[in-house]
């Protein structure tokens, strides 16, 4: 008897959000295990024992423990082929990898909690928003508007949701909601954002719909 998948996740983590979308699209049931990154729970001995590199999200599938959203998603893709997350066409597939990588390497790491805390502590709280806008958002948004122009359909690389969308949706939604980033200069990304919000698998994966979303409204 196969045991249920377990996902160690933080409601606000865009990396966790990506994996939640993948699991929902593929119709995979999983047990949600909350790891609070504000409380540094990823450094707790029990978590490290299970997942020595301490990253969140992490997927547990029987005796396999995997971290890193990209690795988890590709593992799920290979093991559960329903609702494929990569197009068959090699060029389209490659664009999906490119978009995922732009998000995962050029933007998300610079918006991650440890870096934001670092900026806040060493430069100042007000510097954080400037940091986000200057270093993360502008380059990302401008580059993606250009890149996706030739590939987008209903979603980022066509009329189906693929890997690129799994990385874009959490990032765009996070930039808009958490950092109040003005998307009006980026019409394609704005359109995608609206399209994503209509997708049930994405809605279900939103931070506010997770078991660890704080029940009282408060500034994070």
């Amino acid at each position: 008897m196969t045991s249920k998948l377990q996902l160690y996740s933080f409601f606000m983590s865009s990396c966790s959000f990506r994996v939640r979308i993948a699991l929902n699209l593929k119709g995979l049931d999983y047990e949600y295990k909350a790891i609070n990154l504000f409380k540094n729970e990823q450094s707790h001995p029990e978590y490290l024992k299970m997942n020595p590199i301490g990253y969140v999200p992490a997927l547990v599938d029987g005796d396999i423990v995997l971290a890193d959203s990209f690795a988890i998603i590709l593992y799920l893709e290979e093991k559960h082929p329903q609702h494929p997350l990569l197009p068959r066409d090699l060029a389209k597939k490659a664009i999906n990898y490119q978009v995922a990588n732009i998000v995962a390497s050029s933007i998300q790491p610079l918006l991650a909690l440890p870096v934001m805390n670092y900026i806040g502590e060493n430069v100042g709280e007000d510097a954080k928003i400037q940091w986000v806008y200057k270093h993360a958002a502008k380059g990302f948004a401008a580059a993606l508007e250009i890149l996706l122009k030739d590939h987008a359909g209903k979603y980022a690389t066509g009329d189906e949701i693929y890997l690129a969308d799994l990385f874009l949706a959490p990032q765009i939604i996070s930039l808009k909601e958490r950092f109040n980033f003005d998307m009006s200069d980026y019409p394609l990304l704005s359109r995608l954002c609206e399209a994503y919000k209509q997708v049930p698998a994405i809605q279900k994966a939103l931070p506010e719909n997770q078991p660890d979303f704080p029940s009282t409204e408060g500034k994070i």
Partner: protein
Amino acid sequence: MGFVPTLLDGDMVLAESSAIILYLDDKYPQHPLLPHDLKKRAINYQAANIISSTIQPTLRIPILAYIRDNIGPDERITWVHKHIGKGFAALEILVKDHAGKYATGDDICLVDVLLAPQIIGTLERYNFDISNYPLLSRLSESYKQVPAIRNALPENQPDFPKELKGIILIRIY
């Protein structure tokens, strides 16, 4: 968009080194860069992303310039060492049970392709001592013996300035 590196393959223009590498691996099956075993593949993807998403982004020139200008020039070394160290510590743990001659076995795979450039010729720039990471140190020595890696070294590229051979080009300024 001005990305470097960029691959041109017919009509196709592709950037982001990981994307380029995966595309090449899909299209040209000789010398596969990903193992067949699902678990080993996953280790490769994880390790590759530790490098491309947690180490590499923190070393970008605009980031280091920001730190120099807003916090102080000396802070850059602290920042770089912290992030490389954190990434290398994670890599040591991740590949510990899988390494053979190379990071995930006896064949060069995706993670080696990303790790070699992160180690060779890069660490001197930041005065980073790899000897605290025994597995990575051993891999570093193995990588230096591989012709495909040697051919790819900066000093063996057409645009490497001949007069600078042997000199460490870029330090944090």
